[in-house]
């Protein structure tokens, strides 16, 4: 009996927490009257089918479900149209309901001049977790989208620098906030400790930073246009006493060597 429980627990832990059955497949909530929010009325008039659903939650919060392909157009219109003027992109996040259901990317907007809030949701199927980035419009989306990418695995097309933000660069266990990701991670604690302690220089510095220091990243972090000499044998750990030889390979040790005339 205990073994049966244990095997089920094993399966649960591998597959992650179960979801409740009440979370719906598509947009939830009854349709609301578009006229109750001036922006939604104008949005329906302008974008037609791209506005899939409109509902009101928590008494007074308006949520609009939009087509993911039109997100750049809709956000641009929300920002530039003077009658809308949603100057603030307060939040970009995602919701995973679990059980193979599509993910929702959530945008929270605030218009300072008109004092209106609006929430946009774009539903993405698990097979196509890609959406246009809002960074060209709102700089606040830069880190917010990086966080969504890191924790959910949703790629943002056109993001200037889409890489992990919370987890280390070499994190190999996946995207933590997905419902199929176990709370304690996929690897054992010993393995997580080992991976953390054996990070290489490329896991600490991104290629542009290494290029500044005059080092070129090797291996999977290499980029063709990075300048500077490359260290033979890849990045070596500067902490390693074997690398403390003096007077060898001037440019390779620590990158930016001090200029001659500086004394």
């Amino acid at each position, binding site marked *: 009996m*205990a073994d049966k*429980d*244990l095997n*089920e*627990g*094993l399966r*649960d*832990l591998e597959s992650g*927490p*179960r*979801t*409740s*059955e*009440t979370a719906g497949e598509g947009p939830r909530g009854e349709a609301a009257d578009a006229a109750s929010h001036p922006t939604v009325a104008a949005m329906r008039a302008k974008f037609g089918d791209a506005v899939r659903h409109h509902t009101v939650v928590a008494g007074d919060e308006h949520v609009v479900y939009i087509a993911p392909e039109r997100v750049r157009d809709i956000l641009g219109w929300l920002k530039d149209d003077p009658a809308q003027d949603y100057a603030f992109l307060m939040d970009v996040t995602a919701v995973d309901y*679990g059980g193979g259901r599509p993910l929702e990317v959530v945008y929270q907007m605030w218009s300072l001049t008109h004092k209106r809030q609006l929430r946009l949701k774009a539903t993405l199927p698990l097979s196509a977790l890609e959406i246009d980035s809002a960074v060209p419009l709102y700089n606040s989306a830069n880190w917010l989208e990086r966080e969504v990418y890191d924790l959910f695995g949703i790629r943002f097309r056109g993001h200037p620098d889409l890489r992990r933000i*919370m*987890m*280390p660069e070499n994190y190999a*266990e996946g995207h*933590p906030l997905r*419902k199929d*990701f*176990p*709370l*304690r*991670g*996929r*690897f*054992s*604690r*010993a*393995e*997580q*400790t*080992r*991976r*953390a*302690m054996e*990070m290489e220089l490329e896991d600490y510095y991104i290629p542009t930073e290494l290029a500044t220091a005059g080092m070129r990243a090797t291996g999977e972090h290499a980029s063709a246009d990075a300048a500077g000499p490359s260290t033979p044998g890849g990045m070596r*750990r500067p*902490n*390693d*006493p074997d690398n403390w030889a003096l007077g060898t390979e001037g440019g390779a040790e620590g990158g930016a060597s001090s200029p001659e005339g500086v004394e």
Partner: protein
Amino acid sequence: MGLSGRELPTLPAGGGHASFFTTRLDALINWSRLNSLWPMPFGTACCAIEMMAAAASKYDTARFGMERQAFSPRQADVLICAGRVPYKMAPVLRRIWDQMPQPKWCVSMGACASSGGVFDVYSMVQGIDTIIPVDVYVPGCPPRPEGLIYGLLMIQEKIRGESITRADFHRAEDPARTGRPNLSPEVIEEVTVPFGNSTRQNRVSGMVPSHALLRPRDRKP
């Protein structure tokens, strides 16, 4: 033999060479060390705020000799790890510890530094003693400043008990272990087993029933 990476102190065979002179010398060395400990505040989260409160005027660690918070590890004696340490921060902690010259001690302040605390999650180190050797654990979330001071007084007690006649007086660490975790993988697995309320964190919304918790040896290697 405890879980710390260091051996327990033993007297050299033959009872050692303790004498009047060595005990007087011990007293002098230990007195000067314990009354001039310079803490290296490795503060990450909420415990760091209590550590700052302990250093401020009301609780004042300066009266115990900790006048100067040595922010450079090269000039520090005690590393006070105050706050939760995620795996991303672990190599930084290890490097700071390695940079500290001997003699050095470590205080693990708070529940998160001692065992992972509330955070039995994918990103959190379950106790910094898996990374660096710890001398004193101060429980609390966060411990009151008096608690931290009590922990520092325990370090002072430990120093008071040291002697130049003991084999571990120089507290030498194996240079090959620089940058490596303090505990071996098997021991890490044993000490990071979920306990207490962490064992209940198996179910998410929808009131699904929970199942037996996975044992360490059943997880992926």
